[in-house]
């Protein structure tokens, strides 16, 4: 059994019983990375020296009994998406613009994980500035799907999902603006949670679309995911949009008992455009949930079809404002010209890739004089309708369930220069960001040897119920297929 086939709790027990050491776990992570990452491409950068040094220090603490059993993540290696800042460890957002950017502080989530005793092994590949659904927009290298190396891992947190699926780390952090945790989790057959907007601090997350961005964990199991969420959630005075609310015990509800739970299944999520194989797996999952005592009914989210257009207007508008800060003056790469304006233009044009430029252009257009009301304001009004759709459903149902993505992972190169085809992959994940509700993607079987993701969506700040249902399904279904590393360089 590979080390990271064990649950986080089991790894923890092994550390406390002396069966393994932190240094050993960290070395296992690095040796697995060395073994497979040439093919997978999940990591942009490793922090080996500091990680090993820290592991030795943690082992000393463990020996001296300074650690209590409460420190459930103590000594565990973690990979962090490269748009989450790490002090002294270059953070690029997979953009050439930031190729030498060395943050002077840690993101709140990184600080919280460090306080919990984790060891950061490196930074994970992604679509540049988190814009993309396939990881093909990385400014550095391709990331491949461990199930089949000819396929994309999904995006934008492609590296975060692929690294966990390939057993390079037991868990990772990603970020989700329109599906960027859930879609790659689905494509790579792992568990990814986008919490309620405001549940996790965004301080230190390089902003893409501030009203939509959330950080969340990617893990191999629901229980592991809940455990990590327990440690990163909570109010942060450095993020004024983080919610000042108590964080419940996410593990307490993982009993397997979902009798009487009411599930809504929007017909729009299983309709046209959703692959037959995906639809079948989701229907099997619903059947199993029914056998476990839950009830499900078909419902309608009437404004679903407008979510994609509203999202691309809003997210791009916010992005065009957020990315204005990258002008080559205070940080990032500067291309010096004769005057300041040309220096801005040259630095930005050289530093950003095509998709980033496309979205900045779209957002700048939507916010420009004469178009603001027709596009930006209109999309904000439609956002209200989408949010109300969910609020109406949650008056009667505990969770909403559907697929995470209309297809399984597609082939590398298939959609890369057709923005509308690429954007359509996000159609089932975008509404939850617009509404701000929590949603998880968990594996629900294979279609033509590729993983299918089941998406479970909850009320605002009710991640606990989402975890409860996800865990009950996972336990009952017991999917145990593992990535095969088909195709790619080896084929």
């Amino acid at each position: 059994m590979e080390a990271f086939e064990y649950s986080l709790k089991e790894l923890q027990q092994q550390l406390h019983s002396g069966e393994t050491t932190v240094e050993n776990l960290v070395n296992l992570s690095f040796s697995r990375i060395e073994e497979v990452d040439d093919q997978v491409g999940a990591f942009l950068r490793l922090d080996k020296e500091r990680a090993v040094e820290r592991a030795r220090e943690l082992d000393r603490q463990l020996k001296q009994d300074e650690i209590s059993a409460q420190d459930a993540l103590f000594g565990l290696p973690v990979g962090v998406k490269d748009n989450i800042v790490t002090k002294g460890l270059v953070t690029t957002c997979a953009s050439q613009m930031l190729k030498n950017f060395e943050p002077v502080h840690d993101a709140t989530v990184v600080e919280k994980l460090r306080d919990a005793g984790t060891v950061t092994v490196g930074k994970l590949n992604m679509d540049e500035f988190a814009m993309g659904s396939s990881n093909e927009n990385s400014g550095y290298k391709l990331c491949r799907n461990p199930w089949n190396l000819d396929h994309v891992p999904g995006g934008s947190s492609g590296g975060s999902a692929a690294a966990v699926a390939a057993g390079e780390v037991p868990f990772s952090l990603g970020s989700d603006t329109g599906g960027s945790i859930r879609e790659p989790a689905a494509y790579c057959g792992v568990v990814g949670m986008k919490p309620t907007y405001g549940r996790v601090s965004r301080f230190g997350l390089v902003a893409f679309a501030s009203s939509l961005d959330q950080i969340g964990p990617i893990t191999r199991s629901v229980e592991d995911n809940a455990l990590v969420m327990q440690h990163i959630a909570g109010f942060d005075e450095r993020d004024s949009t983080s919610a000042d609310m108590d964080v419940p015990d996410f593990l307490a509800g993982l009993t397997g008992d979902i009798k009487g739970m009411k599930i809504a299944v929007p017909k729009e999520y299983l309709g046209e455009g959703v692959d037959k194989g995906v639809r079948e797996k989701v229907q099997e999952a619903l059947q199993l949930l029914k056998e476990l005592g839950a009830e499900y009914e078909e419902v309608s989210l009437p404004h679903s079809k407008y979510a994609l257009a509203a999202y691309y207007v809003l997210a791009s508008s916010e992005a065009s404002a957020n990315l204005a800060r990258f002008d080559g003056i205070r940080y990032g790469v500067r291309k010096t010209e004769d005057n300041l304006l040309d220096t801005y233009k040259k630095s930005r044009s050289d530093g950003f890739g095509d998709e980033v430029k496309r979205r900045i252009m779209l957002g700048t257009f939507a916010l420009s004089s004469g178009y603001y009301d027709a596009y930006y304001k209109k999309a904000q009004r439609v956002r209200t309708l989408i949010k109300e759709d969910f609020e109406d459903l949650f008056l009667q149902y505990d969770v909403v369930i559907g697929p995470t993505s209309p297809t399984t992972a597609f082939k590398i190169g298939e959609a890369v220069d057709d923005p509308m085809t690429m954007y359509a992959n996000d159609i089932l994940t975008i509404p939850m960001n617009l509404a701000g509700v929590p949603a998880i993607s968990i594996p629900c079987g294979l279609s033509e040897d590729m993983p299918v993701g089941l998406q479970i969506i909850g009320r605002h700040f009710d991640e606990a119920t989402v975890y409860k249902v996800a865990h009950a399904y996972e336990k009952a279904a017991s999917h145990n297929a593992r990535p095969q590393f088909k195709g790619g360089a080896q084929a």
Partner: protein
Amino acid sequence: MERITEEQIRHVAELARLELKDEEIRHFGEQLDKIIDAAQQLNELDTENIAPTSHVLDVRNVLRDDEVKPSLPREEALKNAPDQQDGQIRVPSILE
């Protein structure tokens, strides 16, 4: 291109502080036209009496006590600046 003219694309690029080649102007122009065409779909909905949502949570004016706390030391703040002199960021001349 129907909805956006080449001239508009150039104007937007100028606002966005991007320098685009003629080929990029054409390419992005076509793609943006398609995306904006898709966004027209929103006009099917009557939103006359719908309030816009800019933020999903009802949070406003988050305040904290005005306490003096240590801030980033100057050398740390300047650490990533590509060009600097005498503890300040240096930029090209802004006066003609």
